[in-house]
């Protein structure tokens, strides 16, 4: 393998160039492979992998193929408009991504959502989390050549996408939370559906375990691959299920409970091994916990029917017609003034636990109608460093296993 293009002599290079082929010399005695962006195992990114034999000597993630300039665009759009904009970066996890932004706005405005709105947000967040974990799980399955895991996970993800659609009206891009509340109330028959979905998913998880997680081929592929030790995980600053798979009990829902997470009962699954298998198990356990939270949230919402889903002063400002619509359909119709509202000057930081890990927002206002600066650091953006520091030393065939196990989602990383 070392003999191949790396040591092409100058004569052959000239000859190839006359034939119109781009040739360049590689300095080291390595075999350079570009994985992506058009590659079944890359997604929307490129990983420049330098191989020494079959061992990866160096991996350089070349990201930015989905950089859609959300930070800049947020600076020129009115305060509410970044919500739909930002949720496009993790379209499969829309609510989890936008809740911290809304929280930051609420911190700046000194406004708190009513409890029912908070519960609705948590409900959608957890539905999104299950859907997002199943998405990652499916992609992971197909990375290991297990197409059944992909299809099952994507099929079952539809259950939760459907739930979210019933709740918000959109399959993926919900734009659900707004400063001071949410946009729609829960439909009457939603609790029943949610409970059925939860029951169904619990049963399916056992089947997943049988076909995928306990499959000897899969276990063999994942065990001891991509091990991230506890101290290294902290040093690299990776987030989410990846860090909990390395034995660090860090979950924003636990550390700094936002919304109503402090009122809910759930556990944070932590595995000590730090390998790809542990990270996968963390996700599966998290799905179980999310299902618990969905049940609790639905129960609470059923007990507290008729409460406001918009903060009191916002509701009082609504004209009569809009109030009637709200009473009838449970839909909040916002006034144009919302679009051009001004937020007092200041800066706020908010963090939340999205499906793939901690999401961080820094929002600065100069008192105008648009944000002065919105800085968003997404979980995948922080996990990207894994490619550089964990992948080297593994075999080429381990790359999809590690990629899948850290559940890297390029659009989220690139913003």
């Amino acid at each position, binding site marked *: 393998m070392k003999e191949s293009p790396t040591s092409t002599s100058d004569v052959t290079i000239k000859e190839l160039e006359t034939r119109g082929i781009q040739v360049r010399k590689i300095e080291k005695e390595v075999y350079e492979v570009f994985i992506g962006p058009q590659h079944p195992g890359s997604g929307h990114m490129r990983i420049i992998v330098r191989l020494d034999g079959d061992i990866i000597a160096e991996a350089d993630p070349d*990201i*930015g193929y989905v*950089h859609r*300039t959300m*930070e*800049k*665009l947020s*600076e*020129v*759009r*009115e305060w509410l408009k970044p919500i739909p904009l930002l949720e496009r970066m993790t379209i499969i996890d829309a609510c989890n991504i936008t809740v911290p932004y809304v929280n*930051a706005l609420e*911190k*700046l405005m000194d406004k708190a959502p009513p409890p029912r709105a908070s519960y609705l947000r948590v409900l959608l967040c957890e539905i999104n989390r299950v859907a997002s974990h199943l998405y990652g799980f499916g992609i992971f399955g197909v990375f290991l050549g297990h197409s059944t895991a992909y299809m099952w996970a994507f099929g079952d993800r539809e259950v939760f996408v459907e739930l979210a659609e019933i709740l918000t009206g959109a399959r993926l891009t919900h734009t659900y939370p707004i400063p001071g509340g949410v946009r729609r109330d829960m439909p009457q028959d939603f609790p029943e559906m949610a409970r059925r979905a939860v029951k169904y998913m619990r049963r399916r998880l056992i089947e997943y375990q049988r076909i995928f997680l306990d499959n000897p081929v899969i276990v063999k592929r994942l065990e001891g691959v991509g091990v991230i030790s*506890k*101290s290294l*995980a*902290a*040093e*690299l*600053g*990776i987030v989410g299920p990846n*860090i909990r798979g390395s034995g*660090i*009990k*860090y979950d924003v829902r636990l*550390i*700094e409970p936002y919304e109503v997470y402090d009122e809910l009962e759930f556990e944070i699954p932590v595995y000590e091994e730090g390998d790809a298998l542990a990270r996968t198990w963390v996700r599966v356990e998290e799905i179980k916990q999310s299902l618990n939270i969905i049940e609790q949230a639905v129960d609470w919402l059923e007990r507290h029917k008729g409460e406001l889903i918009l903060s009191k002063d916002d509701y009082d400002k609504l004209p009569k017609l809009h109030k009637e619509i709200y009473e009838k359909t449970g839909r909040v119709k916002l006034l*144009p003034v919302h*679009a*051009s509202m001004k937020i007092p000057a*200041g*800066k*706020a*930081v*908010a*963090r939340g636990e999205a499906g793939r890990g*901690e999401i*961080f927002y*820094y929002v*600065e206002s100069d008192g*105008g*109608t*648009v944000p*002065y*600066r919105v*800085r968003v*650091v997404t979980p995948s*953006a*922080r996990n*990207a*460093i894994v490619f*550089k*520091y964990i992948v080297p030393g593994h075999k080429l065939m381990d790359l999809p296993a590690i990629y899948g196990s850290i559940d890297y989602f390029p659009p989220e990383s*690139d*913003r």
Partner: protein
Amino acid sequence: MVEALSLDNIINSIKLNLEGLVKSISISKGYIEVVVDASHIVEAALKLKSMGYDHVKSITAIDYPKESKIRVVYHASSYINEDLAKTIIGLTADIPRDNPVIDSLSQVWRSVEFQEREVYEFFGVIFREHPDLRPLLVIPELAEKKVLRKDFIVKEESIYEGIPHKY
């Protein structure tokens, strides 16, 4: 009021540890802002790290064209120490806009490496002694334009107000 007490404790210990480096320290919404001089940032970061702040969540650069400065904020926190994990320290330094150079913290916290590259490409902030300072997300041609600075104006259609803003 356990929360507030521990917050005070943390501020006190930061003051103690970073003595002589801190310009000002204040509680902001969601984080503790610690302003230091740009030339002392590595020292301050090392001390914060020895206190237990083991990773950086975000590097934010904010452009203030009126004051002709760029503010770089490292939001650091802790994973291992659960008490410190509850707080975020915003290690802040101001650097001149026309010559934005600052020492890289990638030797202190490895987690800043990619985000420093990002700040470099969007704001043109040069991090001294960064191991691999290349544009991360955008093509080199765009990185030269320093797109996230306020003088790079993106046109926006709006019915409410005449935008783009003039800064």
